[in-house]
């Protein structure tokens, strides 16, 4: 069995290998991230059979239980590490041709560090370690948003940095308060003793965690950085931020609410926040004329949808939410990656300049269309089974509130369909396209798009391929006792 710590160590090691390789040749650096991510994919796949039998708990540095930092690789951790390494691999393949100018060496290093932070945050079982990894993720994403050095990039990175730092200060205060009460930082020990303190004493930490890490997760009132940052970053970074970074924020909230505090009575607040997030995100996306800003707002809406499904709190709802998480990661990556070269060729992000792209860049436009249809939830793409499962889970829960809320969510979906269809119409059917020459993106950038198309349609046609795994994921989040026993023995 491979040691799960390698999932964190490999991207970290390769990240710092890049400047050393720079002494030999500057041409190697862009191939390092795909290699590191390919190794990570292999490791994660190798871990699947072991994790399916029993979650892996590994102690870092060879220290024994009360002194060590644990890694807990259950179905949830493996889910994220598979998703991160898959998307990271495809995005870094795309970046081989896409990232040409500026400090390319630093770009590839920071990209790998971002993925290290994401992987570590998903795998660790120690709350301070979680904070450190989420800071690695955040700091590298601040720097990457400003990578182009343009006016818009630096401005939105500054805003993102200020909001993100306030968020992490709150998160650190919460960690301090938790440590003061429980005298431990281990998730399992906190979960074990959480009922021995008065409920009033954990309200403040939990509120600070939700509002602090909620900045990273972009849930509604604290998502102001997202549209700026996602639209002015390079497209590869938008794909990673949208596909991975905000999901990690969401994961942290869920880990605290479900596993550590078992605070299921908070789900009502989360579900209402989720609905507001869906509606605000989708309505704002509808009124955008800038294609990347539209996609960024749609990410907000989708985060709301995922949070809605998971905060239903039933095992069906959680697995539907994680299914939607896969849908959004794959579809939003394909959308951002396909718009990447469209923006380069059109010279602008405005919708009007995208007219005729269907003929000029057929493969990219087709990928955009598939991603859009998948997010809207049309069969045979992956979005259909996931949305179907969310509706099914809400109805199966049976109370009037969930039924009313799912209607609001579906309203959001209708708006989403409206703006995505408008975008697809602009690509294919607007303007006179008879004189347009074919001018497609380079072949190496099309490979990740094709792989994403294959996986979107593949999972869309065979959703059962995933359901067993997703059920394990939902039972890990719901079953606190097994989590505690798994770590403490």
């Amino acid at each position: 069995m491979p040691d799960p710590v390698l999932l964190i160590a490999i991207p970290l090691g390769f990240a710092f290998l890049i400047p050393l390789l720079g002494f030999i040749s500057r041409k190697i650096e862009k191939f390092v991230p795909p290699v590191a991510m390919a190794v990570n994919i292999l490791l994660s796949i190798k871990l699947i059979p072991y994790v399916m039998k029993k979650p892996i708990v590994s102690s870092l540095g060879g220290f024994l239980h009360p002194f060590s930092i644990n890694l807990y690789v259950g179905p949830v951790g493996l889910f994220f590490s598979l998703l991160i390494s898959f998307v990271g691999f495809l995005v870094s393949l795309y970046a081989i041709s896409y990232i040409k100018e500026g400090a390319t060496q630093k770009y590839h290093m920071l990209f790998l560090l971002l993925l290290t932070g994401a992987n570590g945050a998903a795998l660790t079982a120690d709350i301070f370690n979680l904070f450190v990894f989420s800071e690695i993720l955040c700091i590298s994403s601040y720097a990457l948003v400003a990578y182009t050095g343009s006016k818009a990039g630096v401005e939105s990175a500054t805003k993102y940095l200020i909001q993100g730092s306030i968020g992490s200060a709150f998160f650190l205060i919460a960690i301090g308060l938790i440590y003061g009460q429980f005298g431990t930082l281990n998730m399992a020990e906190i979960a074990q003793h959480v009922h021995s303190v008065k409920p009033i004493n954990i309200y403040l930490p939990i509120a600070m965690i939700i509002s602090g890490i909620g900045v990273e997760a972009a849930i509604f009132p604290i998502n102001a950085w997202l549209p700026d940052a996602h639209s002015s970053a390079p497209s590869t970074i938008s794909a990673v931020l949208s596909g991975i970074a905000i999901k990690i924020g969401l994961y942290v909230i869920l880990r605290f609410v479900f596993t550590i505090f078992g605070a299921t009575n908070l789900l009502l607040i989360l579900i209402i926040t989720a609905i507001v997030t869906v509606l605000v995100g989708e309505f704002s996306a509808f009124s955008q004329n800038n294609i990347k800003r539209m996609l960024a707002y749609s990410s907000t809406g989708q985060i709301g949808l995922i949070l809605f499904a998971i905060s239903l709190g039933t095992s069906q709802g959680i697995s539907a939410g994680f299914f939607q998480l896969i849908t959004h990661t794959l579809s939003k990556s394909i959308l951002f990656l396909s718009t990447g070269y469209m923006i380069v060729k059109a010279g602008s992000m405005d919708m009007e300049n995208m007219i005729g792209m269907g003929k000029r860049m057929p493969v990219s436009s087709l990928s955009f269309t598939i991603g859009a249809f998948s997010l809207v939830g049309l069969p045979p793409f992956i979005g259909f089974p996931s949305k179907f499962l969310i509706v099914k889970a809400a109805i199966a829960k049976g109370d009037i509130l969930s039924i009313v809320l799912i209607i609001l969510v579906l309203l959001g979906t209708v708006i989403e369909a409206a703006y995505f269809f408008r975008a697809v119409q602009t690509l294919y059917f607007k303007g006179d396209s008879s004189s347009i020459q074919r001018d497609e993106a380079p072949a190496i950038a099309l490979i990740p798009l094709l792989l994403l198309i294959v996986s979107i349609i593949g999972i869309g046609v065979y959703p059962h391929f995933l359901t067993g795994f997703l059920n394990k994921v939902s039972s890990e989040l719901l079953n606190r006792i097994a989590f505690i026993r798994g770590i403490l023995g």
Partner: protein
Amino acid sequence: MGFLNSYIYYIASFGLIFIGLYILVAKSNLIKMIIGLNIADSGVNLLLISIGYIKRGTAPIFSKPNLNPKLMVDPVPQALVLTAIVIGVAVLALALSFAVRLFQHYDTLDMRKIKEQRW
């Protein structure tokens, strides 16, 4: 006075955090905002330290015989603060380099005038 005596560190650290947050909300100069961020960060670090502090406590090292382990301060928060300070320095450096870049682009650091990105 008993209350003040036993909670003075908590009051001070939350005071620093709120001063920092107030600067972030009320000031529009980016450099001042970054200073506010740093004050809030120091407040958080002080809070962590004071959680592990014991009055007249010693370092948790058995450097002399007959040291009472109950009078030793908790070393874990100190280790956390060491890490948090390093993270704070990284964020500070990044924020200042953004400020330099913004000044090159806009010739001002007033965040009210830097608002090309809007809803």
